[in-house]
């Protein structure tokens, strides 16, 4: 096994555009779950609806890039309203049920044959990202990087933009959570009845939190689709939400930098396990049937599921988290 390659791959994975996307989406989820206590199990639905909002408004209506991005984010706001209005007055598990269901329905709807003309069916939407790459200062045919880690120009552009956005939304959330508004959110997380008793309209605050986190999730979806230069429905399947959850819990729920640390750590661990497993197969220690075909892909989901369970059972505050921020009341 070539450890140098394995670690280089892990570093590339840790700072890849996927990691940036997960970091942004996890910031949104942190607003929902970490600061307000909302159980959003459909973050990928927000990502999908924004990505499709951008893709459809560019390919179908020829919208300029900036307008398409705004439309994409507005789509996430609409989804938040649609999911929040019926459920945020109820027990917290209703939101969980509705979001998990909605994220799968959104994917199935966009990939349906009936809407192929509009959303491209299972092939998705292509060729909408050129307007974005026109702003790239990098030469697409050139390789950029530091040390042994190098990527092509377009990739470098999306990585720079993706991580800048991740830091930007993190700072934004940090500022918001220091404000009186943020303190109300935290008080709702700790004890909704107490917040209500002090005259705060918990429903409206929760709604605002759902919209804000949903828009941040939508931003992540847009970065993903632009980075892949395609909106492919199956890139927005439900397990993505749970990957983001795992990344967030890994970093520590309710901490300001944890989504970024968590996403980097998550992708590095995932890349390490995959590469080590592949290495073991190549060396012949593990039989190749173990990772053949669909199996190689499913192993990571099995591991993430196991990891999510173990983290939640034994270290719910995550690697960097503070246990006091994770004392979730039984609501």
């Amino acid at each position, binding site marked *: 096994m070539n450890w140098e390659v394995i670690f280089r791959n892990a570093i590339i994975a840790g700072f890849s555009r996927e990691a940036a996307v997960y970091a942004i989406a996890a910031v949104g989820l942190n607003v929902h779950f970490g600061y307000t*206590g909302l*159980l959003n*199990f459909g973050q990928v639905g927000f990502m999908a609806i924004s990505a499709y909002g951008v893709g459809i408004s560019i390919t179908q209506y020829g919208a300029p890039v900036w307008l398409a991005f705004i439309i994409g984010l507005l789509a996430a706001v609409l989804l938040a309203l*649609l*999911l929040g*209005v*019926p*459920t945020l*007055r*109820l*027990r*917290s*598990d*209703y939101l*969980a*049920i*509705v979001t*998990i*269901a*909605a994220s*799968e*329905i959104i994917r*199935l*709807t966009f990939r*349906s*044959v*009936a809407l192929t003309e509009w959303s491209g*069916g*299972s*092939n998705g939407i292509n060729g909408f990202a050129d307007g974005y790459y026109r702003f790239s200062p990098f030469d697409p045919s050139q390789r950029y990087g530091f040390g042994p880690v190098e990527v092509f120009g377009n990739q470098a552009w999306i990585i720079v933009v993706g991580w800048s956005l991740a830091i930007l939304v993190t700072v934004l959330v940090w500022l918001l959570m220091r404000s009186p508004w943020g303190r109300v959110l935290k008080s709702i997380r700790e004890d909704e009845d107490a917040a209500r008793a002090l005259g705060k309209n918990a429903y409206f605050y929760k709604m605002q939190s759902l919209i804000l986190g949903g828009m941040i999730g939508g931003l992540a979806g847009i970065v993903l689709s632009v980075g892949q230069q395609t909106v492919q429905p*199956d890139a927005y399947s439900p*397990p993505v939400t*749970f990957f983001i*959850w*795992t990344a967030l*819990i890994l970093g520590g729920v309710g901490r300001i930098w944890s989504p970024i640390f968590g996403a980097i750590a998550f992708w590095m661990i995932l890349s390490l396990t995959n590469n080590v497993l592949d290495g073991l197969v190549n060396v012949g220690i593990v039989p190749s*049937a173990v990772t053949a*075909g*669909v*199996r190689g*892909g*499913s*192993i990571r*989901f*099995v591991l*993430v*599921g*196991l*990891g*999510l*369970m*173990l983290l*939640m*059972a*034994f270290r*719910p505050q995550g690697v960097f988290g503070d246990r006091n921020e994770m004392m*979730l*009341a*039984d*609501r």
Partner: protein
Amino acid sequence: MKTATIAVTGGTRDGRRRLLLLFALLLAFGTTLSTAGFAQDDGPDVGFRGTFVNPGDEPMPIEGIRVEVTDADGAVVGESVSDAEGVWVVEVPGQGEYTATVDQATFPDGVTLRDPDTNSRTLPINPGQVRPILFPLGDGPIPGTVNTGTDVRLILQLMVEGIKLGLLIAMMAIGLSLVFGTTQLVNFAHGELITLGAILAYIFNVTIGMPLLVGAILAILATAAAGALMDLGIFRPLRKRGIGLISQLVITIGLSLFMRYLMLYFFKGDPRSYADYAIQRGNSYGPIVLASKDIWSIALSILVLGGIGLMLQRSRIGRAMRAVSDNRDLAESSGINVQRVILIVWAVGSGLAALGGVLWGVGESISWIMGFRLLLPIFAGMILGGIGTAYGALVGSLVVGIFIQMSTLFIPSELKNAAAMLVLVLILVVRPQGILGRSERVG
């Protein structure tokens, strides 16, 4: 005060050990599945497959029909001849759009395509997908040209299919609802218990070769045991350690992901059918056409649901279940062993989920994702009826089942689950406690 602390830490350590034990068991579950000889698979990783069946009074598979697959440029990428079971499989080099053409010259005498104009079909293939293609033979309605107007016969047909679906959903929903009623936990891994039941029955039926009836009973028992194990190994220790409901909820999500992809790992992605009752011809009952397996499914569902109702109403354990759902502390102080009741609820609910999974597998097909897909209509039925109430789950599921089938009158059937979503959102707006629920449970 001191004693209490010691007792709590003692419980924690015990819980921790049990949790670790469970994770070991889960891994063992994986290895058992793989050593069942189930791991080897013969299907292609990407391609098309199909079955030729002559729809006579006795459906007969047809051997020797040739199918040719060409890629987008018209180059032949593969061909296949149907075997003794009428099955043909063509592997393709990768993702892309391919055209499958059936060679009518290889048809035996008396066999014709139902629609002579469609001897070829062009379909996209996604990575890892084995796409089923149907070339219908003989007389009968041509798929896709079914009259979608508001024809009374069609409405009646959809109504009956909706009742069948609703009863199945009800059977699967009752377990979820009972677990919620007794522990306040929404178990997102319930869908995977459905899949587990269906897949275990497949192993017993196809891999080992038992009759499906025997295999199904074994699968139900095994899934009930798996459900009981989940409570004993994961959720009881978590409750003992005082882990909050929200954390438990996230753990059910992790468990669902873990089980689902473990089943994908061993079962692969393509949908399969049981060896028995796979092909059945529909019989006409007045204006309605139903296969006899559909009638069995309806009858069995009614019987089982009736049995569950009787158990809840009359038996000691049923009363205890209702008592725990009503008021756990009161039940506990009146001498009911609450932990034991919860354990039985997990086992019974999982068994029902498995039965629902097997019936779904007989009527449709078995796949690793079926349980997850079914979770949405189950949630819709459960919430419509009133979350945590067993009878509510029944009523709500029937309504959802009929609504889903009826919605295909107006929207493409691939989107019918979106209709279930719509019902769910509407109920939550109008009457969040559901038809039979009590409002104090909510909010």
